[in-house]
């Protein structure tokens, strides 16, 4: 991607290698002064930061899609060609969707496992009851 791996380094001068990748680093927001005179390791941080930015944009695009979908679903009743007279669209979401954070996911998982434990316990109880009845 950065144009360094496809050709043997002996044939390209180090200056050419730098000049070749410089536009990429400018495009991801690295100032040229930092590229030339800054800590040589900084480029790694810029690449990682760019990766995070792309993930954030992806989430943003996904959320936009979710809101658009929600909006369409809510007006769908009146878009129907044979909708009854007086059909009204459902109101738009009254508050933003809650972000599914890691903690929320953990709570969901815990609730699921608790439900499962309860189901197993009640099944055992039922089995014990029927067993006792039969043995009376």
């Amino acid at each position: 991607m950065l144009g360094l791996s496809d050709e043997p380094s002996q044939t390209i001068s180090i200056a050419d290698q730098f000049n070749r990748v410089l536009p990429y680093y400018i495009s991801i927001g690295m100032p040229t002064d930092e590229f030339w005179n800054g800590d040589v390791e900084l480029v790694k941080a810029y690449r990682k930061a760019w990766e995070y930015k792309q993930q954030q944009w992806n989430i943003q695009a996904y959320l936009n899609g979710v809101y658009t979908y929600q909006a369409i679903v809510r007006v769908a009743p009146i878009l129907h060609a044979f909708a009854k007279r007086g059909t009204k669209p459902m109101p738009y979401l009254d508050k933003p969707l809650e972000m599914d954070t890691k903690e929320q996911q953990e709570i969901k998982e815990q609730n699921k496992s608790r439900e499962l434990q309860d189901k197993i316990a009640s099944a055992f109880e039922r089995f014990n009851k029927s067993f006792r009845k039969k043995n009376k």
Partner: protein
Amino acid sequence: MAQQIRVSFNDEEYTLEYTRATAKAMEKGGFDINAISSQPNTMIPLLFAGAFLCHHRKVKEETINAIFNKMTNKEALINKLVEMYADTVTTLLEDAEGEQGNASWEVC
């Protein structure tokens, strides 16, 4: 954080480091990392002097040579300088962080 070497000489502290700008300037001045083993007498002084360009641009050549002559464990020093110089390029290569390589290698 980029690798640096600190040198004390005549009550002065020197920080040796390479940036891409100094690596480029060194190349312009005739330094070629590929020729370091074939022309060590030319390339090693250039490699050492180039490490002063980042933080001590105004230090005279005689001082740099005097420092180099007084340096102990020169082989390890040169290896470290080569590694630091190479870092100006290798840091530009994509690295899959967290991924361990499965191809082993050794010096023969």
